[in-house]
């Protein structure tokens, strides 16, 4: 309970440094994390353990004061009762209490020590973290290899104004977490890291708008009342800072659409089917045993749906100078910045049930795996959980600004909705109808100047966009069935993810042409690619 004060004191100490646009975290020196970090990381479990102990001792405490019969000891575990009886009998209560307090102090000292040695620094080249008392770890990540920076505010730390910053680089488990920092510091630090990573010169661009906003926010924090007020303001504040992104570049989620799309998902269908099956079964057999067996599954599915909705509320995608920013969450909030050129492929797709409503979703392949879960509870690869065509257009423009240009808009529209060869698309030949019953006229590709577009599916429609600067390799394949039909299939290889960019059942000559063109174009594109230093002209 002392921690709010502690955090508040530290905040006021930090206040004089505020008016500077840059945090002093990015100065290349070693820094420590938020002083309340141990509480957020281990403290919750600690409180839970004490809670469990109290619940278990409840009966004994009641017995102590009320003097109930011995027969009432049903809930308290036998072992526990025996142990406490033993302690009372042997008059060791004081010793046990002292031992308990000693253990508590030891744990607190351990937490404090681990906070002391957990330090990070950010230089012009790398971000480095060292931690651990017995097992020391030291992790360094190159700034120009950053794939994304994520700021998460789980509910409890958020109440105390703390946030978790996570810098991800390519690969599995390749992230540098800084948990926890003061919320405003985390925002400023992210801006600084991105600025350093972008290749811009240090003093050149320092957007002071946000710094000023931060200073204003801190300025109101006078005393405990002021601090509480400020917490409340932070909790109720719009998820996205107005200064960071231009309003016209922001895509927001409509809550009605979010709920509707979740209700029209496969999970809901399974849930409803299970409920119907259950009702019918019970009505026929009159047996309630199955209800008990199915109950956990039903609860789990229902919980999944609710989590999905609450996590995706207040969803926003915005463009910032340092990349796309995706934020969401009602109680626990998360927002992530993906610098330019970190998106390896984009897929616009439409589940069958969403078709009447005209809703779409957008997923991406990216080289990093964030430990933070995405809006729908899965990896952070679904960028737009649900949106109409306008949203899709806007998000494509945000994700791939060099691909979704004004000239490319008709091609993209054709890719999402169209079919046949209009607009230069090349589709499967009529003999491919055996393999693509309904989608023969839609199944096709278009090679643009900066990306290859793959269009598939007439019932489950989808469009995959792979920027040529990000293709790793390309393959053309043919098995016996395709051979008999003189067809071929082309795979464009990108980093692993939910999207597998491939197009099957093309005429063999078209397939070969696409293969050769993509191979040549991706070499050209890679040569001119400077996205790892996106602000360096």
């Amino acid at each position: 309970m002392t921690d709010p004060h502690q955090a508040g004191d530290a905040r006021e100490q930090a206040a004089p440094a505020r008016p500077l646009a840059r945090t002093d975290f990015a100065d290349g020196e070693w820094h420590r994390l938020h002083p309340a970090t141990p509480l957020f990381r281990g403290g919750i479990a600690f409180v839970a353990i004490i809670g469990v102990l109290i619940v278990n001792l409840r009966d004994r405490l009641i017995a102590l004061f009320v003097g109930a019969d011995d027969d009432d000891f049903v809930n308290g575990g036998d072992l526990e009762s025996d142990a406490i009886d033993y302690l009372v009998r042997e008059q060791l209560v004081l010793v046990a209490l002292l031992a308990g307090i000693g253990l508590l102090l030891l744990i607190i000292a351990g937490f404090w020590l681990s906070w002391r040695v957990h330090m990070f620094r950010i230089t012009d080249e790398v971000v480095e973290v060292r931690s651990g008392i017995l097992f020391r770890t030291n992790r360094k990540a190159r700034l120009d290899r950053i794939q994304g920076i994520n700021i998460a505010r789980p509910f409890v730390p958020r109440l105390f104004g703390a946030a978790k910053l996570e810098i991800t680089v390519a690969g599995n488990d390749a992230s540098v977490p800084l948990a926890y920092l003061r919320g405003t510091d985390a925002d400023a630090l992210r801006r600084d890291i991105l600025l350093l990573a972008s290749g811009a010169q240090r003093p050149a661009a320092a957007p002071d708008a946000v710094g000023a906003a931060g200073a204003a926010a801190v300025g109101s924090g006078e005393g405990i009342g002021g601090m509480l007020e400020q917490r409340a303001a932070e909790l109720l504040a719009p998820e996205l800072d107005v200064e960071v992104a231009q309003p016209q570049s922001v895509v927001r989620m409509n809550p009605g659409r979010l709920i509707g799309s979740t209700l029209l998902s496969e999970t809901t269908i399974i849930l409803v089917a299970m409920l119907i099956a259950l009702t019918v079964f019970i009505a026929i057999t009159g047996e309630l045993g199955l209800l008990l067996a199915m109950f956990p599954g039903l609860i789990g599915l229902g919980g999944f749906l609710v989590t999905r909705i609450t996590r995706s509320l207040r969803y926003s995608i915005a463009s910032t100078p340092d990349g796309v920013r995706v934020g969401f969450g009602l109680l626990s909030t998360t927002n992530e910045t993906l610098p330019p050129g970190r998106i390896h492929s984009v897929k616009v797709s439409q589940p069958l049930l969403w078709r009447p409503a005209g809703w779409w979703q957008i997923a991406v392949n990216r080289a990093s795996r964030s430990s933070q879960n995405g809006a729908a509870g899965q990896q952070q690869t679904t960028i737009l959980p649900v949106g109409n065509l306008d949203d899709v257009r806007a998000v494509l423009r945000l994700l791939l600004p060099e691909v979704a240009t004004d000239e490319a808009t008709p091609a993209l529209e054709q890719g999402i909705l169209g079919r046949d060869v209009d607009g230069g698309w090349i589709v499967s030949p009529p003999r491919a109808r055996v393999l693509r019953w309904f989608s023969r006229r839609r199944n096709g590709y278009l090679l643009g100047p900066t990306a290859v577009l793959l269009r598939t599916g007439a019932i489950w429609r989808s469009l995959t966009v792979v920027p040529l600067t990000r293709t790793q390799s390309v393959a053309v394949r043919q098995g016996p069935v395709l051979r008999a039909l003189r067809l071929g299939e082309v795979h464009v290889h990108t980093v692993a993810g939910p999207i597998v960019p491939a197009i099957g059942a093309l005429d063999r000559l078209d397939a070969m042409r696409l293969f050769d063109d993509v191979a040549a174009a991706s070499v050209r594109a890679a040569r001119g690619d400077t996205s790892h230093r996106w602000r360096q002209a």
Partner: protein
Amino acid sequence: MSEPIEQAEQAARAEQAEPRSLTRSETEWQRVSPRYIPVDMIGTLVFGAIATTAGFLPFWFGWREGWFIGAGLALIFIITLALTPRRVRSIGYLLRDDDLLFRRGIMFQRFVAVPYGRMQLVDISRGPIARAFGLAELKFVTAAASSGVLIPGLPLAEAERLRDHLVAVAETRRAGL
């Protein structure tokens, strides 16, 4: 509505493109060593013997009609063995100006083009049988797991030369992820 045009187009294409497979104009493919044929065959034989024996187990344990499992497996492995020389001869690679072109397969044809700049690492590995024949296999790894460029049956010296060449070229054409 464009059906007649498509049909005409199709007919024209069928004429000009008699072969059904993915034929390419490149002729100067680098092939793998013919010594790789026995290496591949021995590997298939060992695996085939084990699998066939396992396939006959139900038969030996009293299921009289179960012979077809083992026999079918044996047949599959015999066909695989018979096709090994052709399959090995179909493996080839080509060092183009900016990328590595790799091909393999006859029934299941596959061509891959990997820009040198996308190389993450090159691996040379040698199994016991390949080592006895003085061969090695070279793996070209990119950030995409599906690239799958694995050139088997290279004489060790050639594999090492190829590796050094690839590393050198990749350095000059270095690209991001």
